[in-house]
């Protein structure tokens, strides 16, 4: 029988043999990204928002990544876009995670109560499920269309898309933690309900949302680019990977691959780097 069963000790052995030196290598790409985001606009050889040469020049010589159909330098724009994309991803992750934890805590603690508070909490819980019924890219499309595309509005729209999942993860954990004996112990020893939540429920129930944060970051970056690709993201010539790919797409269909490829590679590398950080922090394989 070739059906190999994993034994529990094999799991622990794998964990024990992980060397810290190798693990921290996974942080290097993320560190480079942050450096590029901070220093990028200073490092680039050409202005990322101006026409600098003839359009559609292939990579080489002066323009390492070539020029796009308008004549802007693809290398400079790819590097300069790091700041915009990372900034949106980072703020969205922080907002979606902290608000998600807050909502998850409030809903989870009040859901089984009687009276208007309980009803409201159950309503919010249902509403969170319903928001997830609509694809995130469509929610983003609608919100951005009306609030206009800017870094703050993109951040708010993406937070709305990504918050429900975080809140649901925390809510499920709060429901489990709520019945634990140490809460009764704390209650008996005279802790108020607020102190109880802050001291015991919060640290014990927020980990799934924190673990998921690197995934939220990745989704935020992909969604930003997706909205840019659909033509409702940050307006060109603001450097942004999604809109750069959209501008490069017709070119790619006629053989000029460079103006779409490089931002796409940057996007994929960023998502990989961020998931590397997530694995490093939470030890998930």
């Amino acid at each position, binding site marked *: *029988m*070739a*059906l*190999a*069963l*994993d034994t529990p000790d094999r799991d622990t052995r794998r964990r024990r043999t992980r060397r810290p030196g190798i693990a921290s290598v996974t942080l290097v790409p993320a560190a480079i990204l942050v450096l590029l985001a901070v220093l990028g606009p200073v490092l680039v050889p050409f202005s990322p928002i101006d026409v600098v040469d003839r359009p559609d020049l292939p990579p080489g010589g002066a323009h390492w990544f070539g020029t796009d159909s308008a004549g802007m330098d693809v290398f400079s724009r790819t590097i300069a876009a790091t700041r915009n994309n990372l900034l949106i991803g980072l703020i969205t992750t922080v907002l979606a995670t902290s608000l998600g934890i807050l909502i998850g805590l409030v809903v989870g603690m009040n859901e089984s109560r009687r009276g208007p508070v309980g009803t409201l909490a159950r*309503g919010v819980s*249902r*509403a969170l499920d*319903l*928001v*997830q*019924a*609509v*694809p*995130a*890219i*469509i929610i983003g*499309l*609608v919100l*951005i*269309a*009306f*609030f206009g595309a800017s870094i703050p509005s993109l951040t708010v729209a993406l937070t709305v898309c990504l918050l429900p999942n975080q809140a649901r993860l925390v809510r499920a954990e709060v429901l489990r933690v709520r019945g634990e004996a140490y809460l009764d112990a704390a209650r008996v020893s005279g802790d108020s309900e607020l102190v109880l939540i802050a001291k015991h429920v919060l640290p014990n129930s927020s980990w799934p949302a924190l673990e998921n944060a690197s995934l939220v970051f*990745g*989704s935020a970056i*992909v969604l930003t*680019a*997706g909205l840019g*690709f*659909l*033509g*409702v993201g940050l307006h060109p010539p603001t450097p942004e990977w*999604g809109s750069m*790919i*959209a501008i*490069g*797409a017709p070119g*790619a*269909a*006629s*053989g000029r*691959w460079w103006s*779409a*490829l490089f931002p*796409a590679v940057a*996007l*994929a590398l960023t*998502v*990989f780097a961020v*998931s590397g950080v997530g694995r490093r922090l939470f030890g998930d394989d």
Partner: protein
Amino acid sequence: MTHLWTRNGWWVRRLAVLPLHLLIFALVVFFLVKLIPGDPVAVLSGGQPMTPEQYEATRASLGLADPIWVQLTTFLGDAVRLDFGNSIISGIGVMDEMSTRLPETVELAVMAMTISALLALALGFLVVLRPRNAVSRVIASYARAAGAVPDFCLGVAGVFVFYSVLHWAPAPIGRYATSLNAPPRTTGFPFLDALLSSDTVLMSSMIQHLWLPIGVLVVAYAPMLLKLFIRSLDQAKNAQATRFRIASGASRPMVLLSVGRRALPSTIAMFGTIFGFMVGGAVVVEQLFAIPGMGEYAVQAVTRADFVALRGFLLVVGAVSLIVFFLVDVVTMSLDPRRRPGVATAGG
């Protein structure tokens, strides 16, 4: 009678809350669209100056002059009769547009979904049964990287490689060659209609045009399903029940069947979410391959600030997703009775 109820109550109750969820969703959509800044009347006039009388007349014709309570009840009443109003820009009924566009997009999503599900099923077993095989290692690491390469990147790369370099795919314009006529409308699903009218020329043109967009969706979203299926297969494989099967001398196919049956529910439970992704992905892919459908409609409605069209679009997408979620719940609960709502309370 009570016996019948205890047997079937779980899905009847689930069906009964569906309209309630739709109502909540409609309320959310109504107020969300209300909150949007900007004046629809100004959008409609296209920035041309209007006299106050004209302005008031336009406002009244859009129903915006009524108190909000009246607006809400009219909106809900119309929605129940499947009347989502007329687009404020083109004047075409939202429902008319939806009834042609929704099947087009759903067909694309369902085709991609079916292929992804079959692939996930086959590859999942391969990876779990032959974990040291080189092929399954590659598949497993791709599944683990699920979602890292977004659909539009894959789409652009696909167009470049298969259209502009290899010439295996036709130009990314439309669902079939522009010289051909649309199939006679029987079901509204274009490929199914072509199949029913046994128009082989049209069908082969559709297959030529659609294999790449569907391939893009499959490559982008199948890993999410696969990742989950591998994880639950692994869990099911290591569970006591498997040891018991092996120990009691069951044949290999029976053991595999038992593992698969226990691993499936949690994967199917993800189907609703993946279907949502597929619809979202279809919107992106439709834009890239210039395929008419919901994506085109949404982007148009958004760029023209057409609030009636957007409201209708959101309602339809939401309703479809909620119905899919309902079906998924029913399927998972029939496969795994422990997931039925009544069971948990009865046990403790």
